């Protein structure tokens, strides 16, 4: 009663009255959370069911009718997608394009961030902390700010070297890597500062070069952080629409997000492909998520600011 008596009496009485009403038994909590869980599952289930029903039934009856008529379920839509194969403009082609963008970005960000963080933590030159602060400061730049000049920059590259990354997959990759680095360096540096310098000294005494120390000693130790960074980066890039739209809008091969966006414009006409494509698009990050859930949560916690 001590805690309650420290409250002001009038407010206290109201709070107690409210508290009595709000005292939640375990059963009530379970019921509330079960309802929340159902609410959270409905969209995902609806997407799955729509993709598993024939196109003709869409708009004729709601997807929830499937619970009374399970015979409506069919793999037909998926069969169609796979029979189309990797022809450009198809779902599988977009799936490959998404991978072609996401995997290089993830590897590059993880590698370049680790190298830079290694340099910032274990280098012996002055001004390292200053540079780190500037890099962290770059996290505030919204990528929208850089789009137009980078398009221009790409064109200049085309004029000067005959290599214009605009409209190509490397163009998208270059942009994504740049905007993945500040967070990547931030995360990796924070992790590497926890590695004792003695370990590196041991390597140096045995005559190992910096690269070897980085590769053989530091990288294996930093794997958990790299995993968090890689998963975060993978999902971030996999789900990007804006950068791909700007740099890859008119391309024949588009990532899944653009594929879905293009299909939406004629939503009613081909919803089977939208739903099926959406399931394919969420399938990959879901696998990544369930395989590395622990690292993902850690990445979310570390990347809260992004």
């Amino acid at each position: 009663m001590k805690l309650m008596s420290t409250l002001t009496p009038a407010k206290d009485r109201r709070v107690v009255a409210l508290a009595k009403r709000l005292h939640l038994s375990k059963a009530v909590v379970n019921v509330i959370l079960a309802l929340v869980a159902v609410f959270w599952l409905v969209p995902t289930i609806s997407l799955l069911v729509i993709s598993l029903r024939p196109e003709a039934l869409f708009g004729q009856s709601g997807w929830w009718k499937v619970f009374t008529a399970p015979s409506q379920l069919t793999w037909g839509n998926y069969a169609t997608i796979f029979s189309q194969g990797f022809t450009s403009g198809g779902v599988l082609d977009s799936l490959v394009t998404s991978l072609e963008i996401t995997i290089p970005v993830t590897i590059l960000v993880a590698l370049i961030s680790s190298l830079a963080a290694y340099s910032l933590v274990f280098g012996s030159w002055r001004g390292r902390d200053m540079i780190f602060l500037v890099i962290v400061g770059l996290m505030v730049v919204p990528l929208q700010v850089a789009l137009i000049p980078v398009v221009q920059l790409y064109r200049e590259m085309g004029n000067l070297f005959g290599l214009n990354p605009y409209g190509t997959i490397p163009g998208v990759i270059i942009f994504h890597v740049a905007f993945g680095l500040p967070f990547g360096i931030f995360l990796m540096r924070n992790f590497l500062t926890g590695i004792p310098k003695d370990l590196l000294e041991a390597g140096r005494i045995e005559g190992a070069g910096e690269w070897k120390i980085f590769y053989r000693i530091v990288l294996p130790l930093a794997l958990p952080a790299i995993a968090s960074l890689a998963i975060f980066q993978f999902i971030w890039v996999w789900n990007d629409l804006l950068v791909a739209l700007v740099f890859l809008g008119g391309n024949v091969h588009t990532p899944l997000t653009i594929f879905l966006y293009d299909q939406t414009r004629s939503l009613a006409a081909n919803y089977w492909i939208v739903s099926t494509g959406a399931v394919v698009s969420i399938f990959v990050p879901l696998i990544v998520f369930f395989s590395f859930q622990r690292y993902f949560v850690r990445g979310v916690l570390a990347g809260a600011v992004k």
Partner: protein
Amino acid sequence: MTSIVAGDPRVAPAKASRRRGWWRRNWVSLAFLAPGIIWLLAIVVYPTIATIRFSFYDETATKYVGLHNYASVFSTDAILTAFKNNIIWVLVFPFFVTFIGLMVAVLTERIRWATAFKTIIVMPIVFSTTASALVWRTIFDLDPHIGVVNAIEQTVSDWFRAPGAYPLNSAIGQTAASLASFNATGGSGGSVISKSAVHPGDTVMMGLTRISSVTLQTLGAQTPVAPQKMKGGIAGLVWNDFSPMQTSNTTTIVSDEHGLPNLRLSLVSSTGTSVASTVTNSSGGFSFSHVAPGSYHVEIVGSNFQTAFLGTFWLGSQSLTPVNGLNQTAQSLLSVPLIDLAMIISYIWIWAGFAMVLIGAGLAAINREVLEAAEIDGATDWQKLRRVTIPMLAPVLTVVFVTMVINVLKVFDIILNMAPGSSQGPATTLALSIYNDGFTGGIHSGVASAIAVILFLLVVPAMLWNLRKIKG
């Protein structure tokens, strides 16, 4: 070896060799840092400066125009709409997502299936906003055969006011009276009533028009049959008094006309009270037997024409605030389009898991002893939450809140994918305006850059605040 350092010639070689020593010691370390630095300078630092410069130049970045682009940002209705929508997002979304994240994080501590529950809530974060937007677009679809929200609304609405067999088309402002044709006129309560009085032993015929052939087909309407007189009763017919063959004949039955089945009728006495009721058969015929002597009217009751459930256009731009009579600019600033609400709900679905994970981590770090002490002191759940948990969580809650503010300042994908064409304009945001102004229909750098700079300036304080908090 040539010295670039002026001064004492004896010092110079020492300095140079020191510098060479520095390079030798540090070149590997600097080489490790170089790719990251070059990348950031080329694709983040330089473009940011270039955008600031572009914002003072014309659309092709050739002529200096001063603050002209900024002036047009604040005088263009479409961009003001974007500001308005960003404000709505910032005011509504971060609060609710933090609140829900907190509630869910606190409650999950008490259940056994917390892991499964957390997984369910977190899952949408890994979906692309594009895919999530498409899912929610169907959930909020106007058609109750597609959208589950409207399907629920329809079910509830039908409990309270079931649609009649002959629903009026309210979209074109149809009324029951406008259907009346032969011997019929509009009555009270949206009904249709016979013009002539009728007495027991008489027959009565009433004609309606403008009944859709689809309705007739669904109801299985048959060819009308002229009513036969019956002793002590009233026999009659209600039919669709329209023949495509003889459009001018509006008084008698024509062979290709249809009776109107399933109409609920009421026999109204001269005092205006209903004395009997019946329903028409498949050829539109009806009868009231054992009618007391007197003068009556036959009424086709209003419920027959009850309009069908129309659905809520969740994805539409109709405003939740009254904006009638305001000028264009005031409308763009004051309207709250319904789709904003639908999109915010969808976005909460996506991001609540993020809030829950962060707040959950904060909860785990709370000193259990304080909570236990409060419990021993007799604090209830609500008091523990309100007086202990929330104050101790305040730093985490603000980080979540500010992160969500930054997030919705940049909100883009969900609008592009969830809003149908007609709602794109009313639902636009700053990030979407940058894309639309800058990249659709060629590259235009002026106004888009000015919006980008403004967005940057809005994000920076929140971001710096957050970074400071996270660094401790």
